[in-house]
């Protein structure tokens, strides 16, 4: 079985190694890709159908019934923003569908505040070989496919 994982944001897809954070760049919590977001206020959408199991203003995890969990992190070190500039549209535990908006943010504002707005999208605890068809070095719209996760 293969799980299609969609992009939470519009932007340019890059390798995780481009992320200026060791934990993500070295895929310590799982493989994936990163999206360099379009610098404009936008909705961030769920990459898959599932349940919002972890929710912070700057990051969230959606897991499906099969145990596949995707982490989306909006910018690097953005926990320090303490929620400023992030408007949540769901609550923890809520069922969401792929493409459903989770939070609204402005990558330009995050960047102006001194943070890298790049968004790692991580298949938690997956092996690197489980991911295929990574949409690297292409421009995507929100909800366009980022990769397939074979389960």
């Amino acid at each position, binding site marked *: 079985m293969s799980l299609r994982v969609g992009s939470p944001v519009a932007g340019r897809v890059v390798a995780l190694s481009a992320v200026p954070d*060791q*934990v993500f760049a*070295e895929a*310590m*919590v799982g493989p994936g890709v990163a999206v360099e977001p379009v610098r404009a206020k936008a909705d961030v959408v769920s990459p898959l159908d599932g349940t919002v*199991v*972890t929710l*912070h203003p700057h*990051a969230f*995890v959606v897991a499906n019934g099969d145990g596949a*969990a995707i*982490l989306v*992190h909006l910018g690097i070190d953005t*926990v320090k923003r303490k929620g400023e500039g992030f408007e949540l549209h769901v609550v923890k535990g809520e069922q969401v569908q792929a493409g459903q908006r989770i939070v609204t943010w402005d990558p330009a504002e995050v960047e102006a505040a001194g943070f890298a707005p790049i968004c790692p999208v991580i298949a*938690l*605890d997956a092996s690197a070989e489980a991911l295929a068809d990574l949409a690297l070095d292409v421009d995507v719209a929100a909800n366009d496919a980022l990769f397939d996760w074979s389960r």
Partner: protein
Amino acid sequence: MADEKAQKILAALGGRDNIVEIEPCITRLRCELEDGSVVDEKALKALGAHGVMRSGNVVQVVVGPEADTIASDIEDLL
């Protein structure tokens, strides 16, 4: 047991007296410590940490998505 894990992580970080602040950030525990040099990296990895990053007395323990739960379990022990 979750509490036992929290207790062991706390011990590997040098015990409660060594903790200035622990802040969970979705996949990691950001720990501000009195003395970063006493951290038992091997023990943390044996407890399931994916990685340990040190920068002086600030030590980040990468524990995966259960970071929030672990941090609140540790807070209960402080």
